[in-house]
Each structure stands twice: as C-alpha cells, then as structure tokens.
C-alpha cells in the first residue's frame, strides 16, 4: 500500500507547530500503525532528518503510553483498540492519514505527537488509592466480595490511563478516567471507607489541573480503548453528591 501522511510537527511548547506531509510508500497490511511510522522514521533518520517523536512502549495495548489522534479520532477509531494495536489492513491503498497529538489544555505538547499527561498523575495522587499499610492487612478471603461486585470493579479497573477520554472530549474532561477509579474502589468494602474524601479530592485535583466537566457527549466511551462505560461518570456524580450531603 502507498499512503500519504499529514503529521503534526511541533518542537516544544513554545513552537506553534504545523502539519507536514510524508509518503509511506511501502506499507504492509500486516504492519501495526506504529510499525508503519517506524518505517517513515527510518527513512527520515537515514536521510539525517529529525524523526517524528511519538510515545509508545508495550505495543500490546496495555501500558497506555501511545497517544495519537488519527483522522480526528483518538487511537484511530477502531473499536476498543489502542494505536499500537491498530493494523494497517484497516486502511486502503492511497489513503491520506492525519496524525496529531492528544489535544487538550491539560496536555501540553512536548514534541510532535508526545504530550505531557502529568495532570492525570495529580488526580491519582489526590486520592486514587486505599490507605492500607504494607503488611497490616487481613487475609484476602476475610472479606467476601460477591462476583458481580468484583466484576463491576474490574470493569472500571481496566482503564489504562492513556488519556484518550480527555483528548476526545470537547471539554477536555477527565471524568471517565476519574470515575473509573472512584467507582472501582467505592463498591469494594476495602475502598468504601474513604469513598467520600476520595471523590472530593480527585474531583478537586481534576479541576485544578485544567480538566473540564462532562456534558454528556460520550465521546470518551467511544474512543476508550478499553471500552470503559460512561456509567462510571454517573457513579462519580452520585458518589460526589453523596459526599456533599
């Protein structure tokens, strides 16, 4: 396959940045999207040009490092798929592809397609945990947790923290990300104890770090590579209300 790529190039936060065009002349349908970019970069490097910077690591869809907006959609629009798991067989010969970084006020661009997602860390540090001490805990079976509750908690816990939800949201809201953690812990007996302070602290941190509010577009769920459901935003809101009462 032969493709034309329009890639966002930006040298740091002070650069204005622009789209540049590259040819990908020899793309195999079995290649992953990132392997296609590797080839483009190989060509750039061989000819002494600055390679396209992009975040990636595990390349198996679980680390949450890769973060590209492809043709306007975070992760490229294949259902429940990260960029690294997107394969070129989903494209056609002659396609033009637009590749941009996560776009959100809370995610300043470091270089090209690489952004700073530290705001997400701050939300987690505000309260995304149970305050148990290493060692001083009861036997794992001491607190039976019904299978449906454990499954609900696990559904929420699947979040990989990539930030696609923020990037897809017109308000740059991190409520799906925050809601997933709040919900995971709020339904478990060991997380319930601190549910109120957790939801307040995490919501406050989201606000402080430049993330907006949910206005029910549901783009986050559509772009989430793990299919995290917006019901966890509803749960976040309910937990928040409970904490205020």
């Amino acid at each position, binding site marked *: 396959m032969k493709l034309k790529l329009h890639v966002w190039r930006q040298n*740091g936060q002070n650069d204005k940045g622009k789209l540049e065009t590259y040819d990908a002349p020899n793309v*195999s349908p*079995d290649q*992953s999207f*990132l*392997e296609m970019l*590797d*080839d483009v970069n*190989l060509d*750039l*490097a*061989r000819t*002494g*040009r600055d*390679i396209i*910077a992009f975040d990636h*690591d*595990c*390349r*198996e*869809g*679980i*680390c*949450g*490092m890769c973060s590209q907006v492809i043709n306007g959609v975070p992760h490229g629009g294949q259902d429940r*798929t990260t960029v690294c*798991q997107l*394969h070129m*067989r989903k494209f056609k010969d002659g396609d033009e592809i637009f590749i941009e970084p996560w776009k959100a006020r809370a995610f300043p661009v*470091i270089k090209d397609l*690489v952004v700073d*997602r530290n705001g*997400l*860390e701050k939300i*987690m540090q*505000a309260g995304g*945990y*149970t*305050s*148990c*001490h*290493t*060692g001083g*805990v*009861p036997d*794992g*079976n001491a607190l*039976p*947790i*019904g*299978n449906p509750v*454990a499954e609900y*908690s*696990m559904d929420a*816990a*699947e979040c*990989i*923290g990539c930030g696609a939800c923020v990037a897809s949201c017109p308000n740059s809201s991190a409520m799906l990300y925050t809601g997933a953690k709040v919900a995971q812990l709020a339904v*478990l007996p*060991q997380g319930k104890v601190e549910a109120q302070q957790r939801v307040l602290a995490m919501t406050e941190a989201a606000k402080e770090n430049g993330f907006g509010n949910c206005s029910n577009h549901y783009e986050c769920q559509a772009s989430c590579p793990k299919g995290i459901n917006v019901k966890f935003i509803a749960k976040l809101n309910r937990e928040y209300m409970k904490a205020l009462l």
Partner: protein
Amino acid sequence: MILDGKCPTGPIETSWDRHRFESKLVNPSNKRKYKVLCVGTGLAGGAAAASLGELGYNVHAFCYQDSARRAHSIAAQGGINAAKNYPNDGDSIYRLFYDTIKGGDFRAREADVWRLSQVSNNIIDQCVAQGVPFARDYAGYLDNRSFGGAQVSRTFFARGQTGQQLLLGAYSALSRQVKAGTVTLHERREMLDLVMVDGVAKGITCRNMVTGEIESHWGDAVILATGGYVNVFYLSTNAMGCSVTAAWKAARKGAYMANPCYTQIHPTCIPQSGEHQSKLTLMSESLRNDGRCWVPKKAEDCEKPAADIAENDRDYYLERKYPSFGNLAPRDIASRAAKEQCDDERGVGPGKRGVYLDFADSIKRLGEDTIAGRYGNLFEMYEKITDEDGYKQPMRIYPAPHYAMGGLWVDYNCMSNVPGLFVLGEANFSVHGANRLGASALMQGLADGYFVIPYTIANYLVTVKPGEVKDDHAAFKESADEVKADIDKLLSINGTKTPSEFHRELGTIMWEKVGMARSEESLKEALELIPALREEFWKNVKVVGTNEQFNQELENAGRLADFFEFAEILTKDALNREESCGGHFRTEHQTDDGEAMRNDEDFCYVAAWEFKGTGVEPELHKEPLKFDNVKLAVRSYK
C-alpha cells in the same frame, strides 16, 4: 573468587523469620534522614518505593516512561502464584518452594526461594486490601486456576490483566506516598550511570529525556528494579523501552552479572508475520489450560487449512511426549518441543515457524461462552494482530524471548556485591534458577518490593551516616562528564546505519546463535560476530538530532551500545556452562530423547561475571549452590 550469598543456615522453615529478627532496625525518627533512590517503578520498584516511603525513608523514584503506572509489569496477563491452598488441593509453602526449585532446574538458591514462597501469601492479602479486583466465585471468595508447570491451582488472577491490576495496586500505594511527601517521582528519566564513592554506591546520573539535561542524584542507597534484558534479541515480548542499560551501567562499575545465559523463551507468542515486525506479542500461557498444541504428522499437510487435517494425522506432541503434564509442561520444555516440530519441517503458517493451539475440543466440551469468559481478551488480541478468529480455527503460536532469569548478582539481602546497591525483581538473578514457572514473576517482584527490601535494606543503612556524600562530591561531576562524553560521541559519528538497523542485526545473531538451542560452535561464531558489529556500530551509527531535545534515536542508540557489551557476556556465560538446564540448552548436552542434561558435578553454581573493560575477558566468580532440603534430581514431566 568464591561468592557467599550470606543465606541463613539452620532449618529452612524458620530461616526468613530468624533473619528478620536478626536484621538491624533504623530508628523511626532517623528514617527520614536516609535518602533512597529507586530506579524503575514496576512491581518490584513501585512496591519498594511505596513501602520504604511508608516506613518513613526519603525515597526518590525514577522511570523512563511518562508515568510510573506504565512499567512493563503491566503487560503480564496470566496471574500470580501464592501458597494459600484455598482450593484444598494439596498446596503448601513447601510445595510452592519445591515446585519453584524444581521448575528452575535446581539452579536457584534454596533460602531465597523459601522466603518467596512464604511471603507469597502476604502479597495476595496486600493486593486485596489495595482494591485489586481479583476474580471471585459467587460466594465472594477468591478464585484460583492452575498454570503452566504446576499440578495445583494456586494462581490468582484478574481477568487476563493480572499484571496490570497488581501494578496499578502498587502504583496507587506509590501515589499515596507521593501525596504524603515521602516519595518524589522523577518520570521520563533514564539512569545512565551509577555513581560510586570509595567502592560504595552513592547515587545515579540520569538524563532528563525531555530536556536532555544530565542530572545528578545522591542517595544513601540505590535500588535497581529495572527489569530484564531479553530485548537483546531485538524481537521479544518486552516493551520497546526495556533495556539492560541501568543494570549494565552498574556492571560497568563493578556489580557482577549472574547467569546471564538463563533466558526464557515463552511458548505461547504470536508468530512473526514479516520483516517489518518491531516486537512479538505474548498470549498468556493460561491458554494452554484449554488449548491443545499440535502440528501435522506429515510435512506435506502443513500447507493445508487446519480443518482439512484429519484427527489421525495430527501430532499432539506435548501430550505424546509428556503424558502427565501434557499441554501444561513448563515453558522451557514446551518452547523447545515447538521448535523441534518446526525444525522437523512440520511447522505451520508463514515461514513454517508456528504450531497450532487448538480450542475446538474445549469449545465442544464447555461451550464458546465459557472459553470466551476465560480468555476473551486474548482471542480479541489475537484477531487484531493476525486477522484470524481463534474460535473458528486454531491459533498459531511460536516461542519468543520473554523473561530473563539471570541478572545482577545479589546476596540474601538483595544487595549486590557493590555495597549500597540493591537489585530487585527481574533485574536480579536470585529465585528462578534456569527457568521461571508461570505466574512467578509477579510474585517475585512484589515479594522483593513489599516484603523483603523493607527489612533487609536496614542492615546496610545502619552502617552508613545519612547524607554523608551528596551531589557536590567530585564523583558526581566525573560521572556526569563521562555520560556527556558518551552522548557526544554517539551524536558525532554520523555514519550510515540507524540504531534500529544495528539492533535488528544484533538480534538476529543472538536468536540464531544464542537462542533456544546453543552449541559450542554457534556460540563461538557469535563471539566473533558480536564484537565486529559493536565496532562497526561505534564507527558507523547515525544518530540524528541533539542531546538537548526529546530524542528517541539517542535513547535507542545508548541502550543498544549497552546491549552490545552485554550480549558478549551472555554468550560467554552460555559457552562456559557446559550443560543444559532450564532455558539454557546446549545441543552437546542432551539425553537420547532430546531432553536437557544437567551436570551437577561441575556446574551446580551461580556464574557471576565481573566486567573488566570492553573487549577484555570478564572474570568469572562462582557461588556454589547447596541443596539441603530438595534432592537434586532429573527434572521429569513425563
């Protein structure tokens, strides 16, 4: 030199308890005066940083990713072992200990493995308390499954994402300490040197991967929890950023590299599809609980669709060769068996480097829904990569480099031969011997981080005065200057080949000559090829960009430079070890039916290599292994 692991003597059942009691304590009000650097934030590093922070130490944690939550522990799928014996099927601490020693082909330290088995139960409790949503039955109790190489169900799991959930648990504990102010996180930093003062580890030099700034960090102790080195094979199941760099920088400063030839080739990976491939993807070996491995009996059937091959014409080779363990044979054995079938021209798929993993029988017996419930995400992942439906036709799998059993040498306290340098998790060599059993890596990472280092580090810290050496010491500037000089050199060569091209070439040498089957001949060839390629690298590599920018080419070039030196020591270790054990298979040393043949008389030791300079013969130090509790035996899974 004969090395001493300083293991407790006496009855093994009480060895760890006695050691804990005999260990020194740091006064609670003095703990905050000690600064501890922790490099790597995976299961071992994240758990260590969180636990030490909670104890009150002043911890600084470093990772090359943009978040501590992204370390490659996250990719582990299958599960974590513990000797809870919840299913009442005969498990015990002793059995987990025995299985691990035997699984490691009798090349691990007994005392370390006992401790691991003992604390395995605490890990499960800890993770549950953190809110890790382990699988539960309908009565609300924790669910277990059996896993490669074990005949009891002792594996705890969270769907197919156990590593992710355990890492997020450790990451949450770490986040809590960041908020508490006991842990300072340094993301997007790569450790490029270990700073030594008078033979003692006193800090690290690292590169800020965003700005290129070379930073000095002092610490009263340095912990490396930087994972494994199998990216030396280029194609592996490791993340792209996994490297030997931090460990190798320590080795260059005198830390011994132990048993580097013990590499694990994992049997259930998706086969390579072409030259463009950048990494291989593992699918949890839990698939082998319900999938049957087979290849056609006749080479001429290999091109046919699987459905057209009659039952009688299929060779279920694992069930045939190992009737009692069957498809659940340990990884080293299952991988070698797959290679044998393909070497026999009976492989399937592109390049005929693949075997079938067939779920048809299980689907018939249990229904597609049950299989989907157990492995749905793996079938999905397989389809995304191969465009094939594993429910309708058998999956194709092939072994791929996955885990490093070898690593920096440590004593029972997890301290290397360099005082003040501790090594945890996959980065050290201690518990897996020559082969790691499934669901044991997560167990080791968390054991070291939560329950070992918080006790053992005090034995060292009480011997040093906190903050005695800080980053104004001349050694820090010297180290930073050396790091800068190395970077400048890489950037100035301006040759014609990129780092990734060199890495591919190194990987091919390692896979062909030092891979699943090694011979004196192939190893000697590798020892010609590796240094030649290394020399070419230093003359002809092309690294674009500058140091003062976000520069992934520079990162890769630096990691590769370390892989070159390390590859040589790995190969030398494989050449020295004139026996077959676990993941190390020397073709000269096998039984008549092709099984690994150990040589306990001459090689029942840990080989710890001291780096003496690039291209200079490394010095071998030995730590004899003693087995007082488990009888050395030929490992049989028949």
